[in-house]
């Protein structure tokens, strides 16, 4: 009897502990950013278009804290970040992919050390179709067959919506394909994951920005395109994506991104030229600290991207010190 009740008590206390521990863990948010003294100077950012809106939000909020710091953001594509960092034209280079070996080498050759990637947000690369398009989902091999001329994932060519499973009016409607230009990290990421490093069809209409892809699809009934989830609008529909290896179609949510179920998930980075022998310039360091703080990560979520888990944030903060 006693044993039993003690067991019950133990169980109860464990449950209670769990209940109290859970909200505590949830409330355990990233460090709140606090102003530090003596921060001035410039922060020039050149790079990813996917991160462009987020960079703008961050810099706006950052300028409120440090009116003396001038932040300039230019976002034409991830490939523009390495040359700008190498030449010293930018202090930070947002990128939606990791640098290629050749880019790292180019940087190392002129600066004498390697650039440091700091993860700042989680992104789901989403496949968009027109709002009125009834297609329920796509698999990666189907996407490959729509976007790629080489079709390395081995699906029969898809040029009309009927070949992707639609019927009626839609069956004979041609698919109009929108994509990013080659400077984009999104272009490279999609090419790698969805196309097995195959080639884009040369009928893909290359757009200079993420928003342009979404706008193109919004105004084109037969349109399809890909962009970061942060660029979702009410005029387009986001498709669940199946991995094509027997898995069910998965919605692009950040839970699915972090547990690896959504196949087109990725991290977004800010590259910094951090000389191992010298501390970062104060303005650059504080900007990154801000981006990784609870205020910064709140803006990440407001912009439609996923905030980083706490342990990852802590790791990234260590990179800046």
């Amino acid at each position, binding site marked *: 009897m006693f044993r039993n009740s003690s067991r019950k008590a133990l169980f109860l206390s464990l449950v209670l502990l769990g209940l109290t521990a859970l909200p505590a863990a949830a409330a355990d948010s990233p460090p709140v950013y606090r102003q530090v003294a003596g921060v001035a100077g410039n922060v020039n950012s050149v790079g990813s278009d996917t991160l462009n809106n987020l960079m703008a939000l961050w810099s706006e909020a950052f300028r409120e804290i440090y009116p003396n710091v001038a932040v300039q953001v230019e976002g034409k594509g991830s*490939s523009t970040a390495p040359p700008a960092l190498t030449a010293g034209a930018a202090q930070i280079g947002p990128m939606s992919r990791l640098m290629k070996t050749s880019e790292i080498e180019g940087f190392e050759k002129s600066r*004498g050390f390697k650039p440091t990637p700091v993860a700042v947000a989680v992104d789901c690369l989403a496949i968009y179709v027109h709002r009125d398009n009834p297609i329920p989902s796509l698999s990666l091999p189907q996407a490959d067959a729509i976007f790629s001329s080489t079709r390395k994932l081995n699906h029969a060519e898809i040029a009309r919506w009927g070949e992707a499973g639609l019927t009626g009016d839609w069956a004979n409607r*041609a698919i*109009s394909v929108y994509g990013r230009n*080659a400077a984009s990290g999104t272009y490279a990421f999609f*090419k790698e994951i969805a196309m097995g490093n*195959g*080639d884009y069809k040369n009928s893909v209409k*290359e757009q200079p920005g993420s928003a342009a892809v979404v706008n193109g699809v919004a105004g084109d009934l037969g349109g399809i395109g890909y962009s970061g989830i942060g660029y979702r609008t009410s005029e387009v529909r986001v498709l669940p994506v199946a991995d094509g290896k027997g898995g069910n179609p998965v919605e692009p949510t950040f839970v699915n991104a972090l547990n690896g179920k959504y196949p087109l998930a990725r*991290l977004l980075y800010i590259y910094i030229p951090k000389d191992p022998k010298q501390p970062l310039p104060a303005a650059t360091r504080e900007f990154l600290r801000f981006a990784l703080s609870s205020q910064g990560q709140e803006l990440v979520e407001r912009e439609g991207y996923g905030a980083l888990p706490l342990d990852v944030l802590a790791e990234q903060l260590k990179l800046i010190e």
Partner: protein
Amino acid sequence: MKKLRPLPNFSRLADWAAEAIITIAGLAVILTLAAMPALMLKEAAPLFLPPGLKPLGKIESPEKLDPGQVAALIVSADLSGKNRAAGLLARDGRLAFAVPGEGGMAFLPWRPLTGSAAAIRQAENLGGGKFSLLREDGVLNLAQIDLEFASDGKGGTVVEPAARILLEVEMGGETAPPLYAMLRGDGASHQALAVYADGTVREKRLAPPRGLLRRGGGIASEREARIRLPASLSAAALNRSGDTLYLGTGEGDLIKVDLSGDSDSEIAWEAVPAFPDRRPVTALAFLNGDYALAVGDGLGGTSVWFPRRENGEFRLRRAVAWPIGGGAVEAITPSLRDRSFLSLRRDGSLSWFHSTTARELLAVPARNPKPGLLAVSSRGDNLLSLGSDGNLEFQAMDSAYPEAGWNGFFRRLLYEGYERAAFVWQSTAPESGEPKLSLVPLVWGSVKAAAFAMLFATPLALAAAVFLSQFAPPAWRACLKPVVEMLAAVPSVVVGFLAALWLAPLLESRLRFFLGDQPYDQRNSLVIAVALGFAVIPNIFSLAEDAISAVPNSLAAAALALGASKWQAVRGVVLPAAAPGIFTAVMFGLGRAVGETMIVLMAAGNTPIISLSPYNGMRTLSANIAVEMPEAPVGGVLFRTLFLCSLLLFALTLGINLTAEILGHRLRRKYGSP
């Protein structure tokens, strides 16, 4: 006679100064004009330079090990290319490093590589300092051998060799160790694969943890399959992602083993009789990019194979073959940088091939002592070879731009995975991708855009010119001509903007009804015809109108007096007399259309397609330069190719303008004035 007064000193000085300034300015303009193509040529010329191997010196290997006693060579160089280091892994598991020191290169003392004590049977360089080692007792080791240079903080570089065993996996068979085995991976995941003499393929895998952040533990699994080996196994290669294994046999077969899918899925395999004459396959290696397979055979021939779609199925097919000779191919060493590789034959001759452009970049004749083992540095710029005399030799590999050259730019090429050879422009490839640099689609785009624009603009501009000079009341002419010429002042970015955002959607909505289901791109040649045509109409009109107006009125008057109608007089007398001028006008319009950038950049869709259809777009040489400029690393192949594009564009417009001048001149002589 009145005597001229001498000029005052001041006037003379002004005279002299003016002459000097005008001369300098004139010369500067001419010099600049000459310097521009020279600069473009200078930047583009290296694309056509032949590659080279330059000897950098020899070092004696410690103990004079011959190539048979050495399992692997390692070579690295710093970014400046001045400092090099070498490593030598003996079959007995000892390592020797040669690093730059005070008095040149010196060998450090031998050091042991821990792990199994058995001798090393096979060593394979996996890149990134990782080596897969198969021991005689069937144990597989994954070794990390670091020999890369790092900054020493004082502007120089330093190398600190280090070696350790990362992983050990037991792969011994029931009866005998495997014929071929390979281990790859890192701390979190790995894959071990072994092929045994009875045709068994066994795979042990630790799958990486799921999730974007790769946290948590991996999942271990094991599977095996039995493959009917048609003959003795003579060569094998596993790709970096570990999903495709190729086996070569002594009877000319290639076997593709599909290891993709998870541990539950079966291992599929397929044998392809590669050589009808049953010559043995002696060397196999995956080229950079993990897709194409370089095959060396017993007759000294080298070929490249990759899966291509045939009737909807991917089949392993030969893409390129180079001639035989020189004895069996003993080793194929791929570059970790591009699609080039070295093929070493039994007689010691060496060939440097590039698969995409199907070129033999360099042939090195057989020599003594013959090289027995090769290693290429991670940047593909240094070659280390171990000769039969036991000496190590460094060579600088200057591959220049292997993907460029005449073949790369202007020939139909069979790219990896393509069903047939094609002209393709897709410059930016992901890491280890295959850049596709055919300029043919771009030249086609320029020509097509200009042709469509001229088809639209020429009749309109000429009709307007004839009307205004011959039929309209003179008062109209005084007013209308400047108005049309003012159109030339509309900035082309405005025209492009209107064409892309207003004209293109309008045209689509109007044409949709007639076209039905025909493929139709919103930004297409029709839009370009109108927009670009609109931009060149003022040029053609203005010059043509001048030429027609310059025909003496007396000629037309004479025709009219002889009873010709107005149109007959224009057609029979005025137009032939003005033909040289009209021709020049059209040609200058064409030159403008070919060189125009902003309109095509904004309204042509920039799709590098070769097609005659008016319903799809194009990418012109000029727009291509504008599109790709921000992503071209200085000095890289794309950077230089863009200079080549500008050179081509320059040649094209220069050619058109020269033709205009020369033919115009001839016509002028033929028809007299004007």
